[in-house]
């Protein structure tokens, strides 16, 4: 673990994604939504980092900006394909260079219905990345597709079928097979199991874990379901209104959360054990609009322990030791 930690595969620093707001007849730029506003994190080899938070916190935007599926506004993302390789800043690459880098960096989406083209057979969908990158063609391509289907637990014969013939869980397996086609090193799983039923969700989680072991994959797991996150992650970053408020090892976050938001979030999970009903830390109100986030600590409007200084300045990140840190005035 420690060696992996010393040369992270990907080092994201101060990632920002601001969306402009246009208004008026002339569509003048009147401001911006700071969807992701200065987020930093590392992902080690064969490590799973989860990014959690409520809808609108910027977790999905962060994942997509990292792969430049949407162009980031600022920050850097140093990527090392091997531990000894010289780091490349993904955000400085040209479109062309970035396309080549995406062999290593893939994504799986939430909606297994929306992410597959209904007119393309699953075999072609899985083979497309290989064909586009000119890695395989003809019978070799077919063999690769069959191999990938087997890898994700589908029968090779299904290559000629269309997405509508598959269940949600099977479609998600197709999405995983497609992401694996180019032998990536990192996969961003954007709510990859959220749309699935419990029993199917467990199958896909096990598959993701097996693939990680087999191919030394790193995952950035973006999710709102904290029980899945607890199970699958090595480390967790908690986001609120565009910023990471707490990050640490999974155990630290779940057993010893320090930020009031993390505590409230964890206590809100309904426990599937009626004898252990969680003590609810009431969190009133909704997430404020990211167009106009509260001054000072963004969380102070919903925080039970907020003080005067929380309304005035955004808290610095406090190092709590052993990789655990949180941004709260009350910790400093």
């Amino acid at each position, binding site marked *: 673990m420690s060696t992996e930690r010393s040369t992270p595969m990907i080092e994201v620093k101060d990632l920002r994604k601001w969306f402009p707001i246009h208004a008026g007849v002339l569509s003048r730029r009147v401001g911006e939504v700071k969807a992701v506003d200065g987020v930093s994190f590392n992902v080690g080899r064969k490590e799973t980092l989860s990014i959690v938070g409520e809808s609108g916190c910027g977790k999905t935007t962060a994942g997509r900006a990292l792969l430049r599926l949407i162009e980031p506004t600022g920050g850097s993302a140093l990527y090392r394909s091997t531990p000894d390789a010289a780091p490349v800043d993904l955000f400085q690459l040209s479109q062309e260079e970035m396309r080549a880098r995406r062999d290593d960096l893939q994504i799986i989406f939430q909606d297994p219905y929306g992410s597959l083209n209904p007119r393309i057979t699953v075999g072609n969908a899985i083979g497309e990345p290989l064909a586009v990158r000119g890695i395989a063609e003809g019978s070799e391509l077919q063999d690769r597709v069959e191999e990938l289907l087997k890898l994700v637990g589908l029968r090779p014969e299904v290559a000629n079928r269309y997405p509508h013939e598959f269940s949600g869980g099977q479609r998600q397996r197709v999405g995983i097979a497609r992401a694996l086609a180019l032998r990536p090193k990192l996969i961003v799983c954007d709510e990859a199991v959220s749309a699935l039923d419990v029993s199917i969700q467990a199958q896909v989680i096990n598959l993701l874990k097996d693939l990680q072991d087999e191919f030394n994959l790193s995952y950035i797991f973006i999710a709102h379901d904290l029980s899945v996150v607890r199970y699958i992650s090595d480390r967790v970053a908690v986001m609120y209104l565009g910023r990471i408020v707490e990050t640490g090892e999974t155990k630290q976050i779940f057993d010893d959360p320090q930020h009031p938001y993390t505590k409230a979030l964890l206590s809100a999970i309904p426990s599937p054990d009626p004898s252990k009903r969680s003590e*609810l830390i009431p969190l009133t109100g909704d997430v404020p609009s990211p167009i106009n986030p509260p001054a000072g600590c963004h969380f102070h409007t919903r925080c039970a322990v907020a003080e005067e200084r929380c309304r005035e300045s955004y808290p610095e990140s406090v190092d709590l030791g052993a990789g655990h840190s949180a941004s709260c005035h009350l910790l400093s």
Partner: protein
Amino acid sequence: MSQDQRTESAPGGAASEGEREALLQIEGLRTWFHTEEGIAKAVDGVTYTVRKGETLGVVGESGCGKSVTALSVMQLVPTPPGKFEGGRILFRGEDLLEKNLEEMQKIRGNDIAMIFQEPMSALNPVYTVGDQIMETVMLHQGLDKAAARERAIDMLKRVGIPSPEQRVDEYPHQLSGGMRQRVMIAIAMACDPALLIADEPTTALDVTIQAQILNLMRELQEQEGMSMLLITHDLGVVAETAHHVAVMYAGKVVEYSEVNELFARPHHPYTIGLFRSLPDLASEGERLNTIPGIVPSAFNFPSGCRFRTRCPIATERCAAEEPPLVPLEEGAEHTVACHHLKEALEL
């Protein structure tokens, strides 16, 4: 929304005080859909009871028939293609399936109200939220406009919407998802229904908002003595909210019990499998247990026990004979539909 409220309303306590009177009894309900591709037996012999002042949680995976059962109670199933092929839906002892359209319209909204998963699509975007609450009470309770508006503001206050006098004139798009679901609850509760059917009421919401809404529903239920039919796929929500639970699989109830009993002693192999596939209950590093295969299609359920194709202990008998839903022991409330209860306990 206090913490005490949450612990006070813990199910189990109330249920153990003895049997409460039944409000809604569904007996052997069959709702089938006749389509070009064949007959989909979405609900195929469902039996359960909702008692007065209690919450019945109905859990199951997508396509198990839990929502169609609820829509059948409201008679909101489109016919055709839907058709009631058998069974009874007794509400206060009267069979709703024998009511005509006009009688059902009086029952809907007045006696039985329903809230849906997606509050954005359930609310009309071109009317203010006030209009939508007022419509309900003017239609069902004959209030005039001024009284209805008072009522709308009062309801918004009761569901915890801040500055209700202002919010009453706002449109759904001006509200957040959690606020919209509160408005849906306000509309549903406006006529003091005896039974509230909530179909995945918190599935589209964030967990912190979900906790607020579940608390609100529990509070309102306690204050009004209302019964609730809570349909969800989330076992956590059931564990925190329900008094009794019905587990559905492939158009049937496979297990029914008091909530603590069910979570402590699940008996049906499907229920056991479902619990084990929860990441919450797995220890670190341990592989998740899965139920192999996928839910069978409603067009073509397996013969005999419908779970047998995914069941680790299925035998020839399971293919030949459909197991009835029977009490675990003489007089027990806990019922299970499985031929091999002894083997299931060793799973």
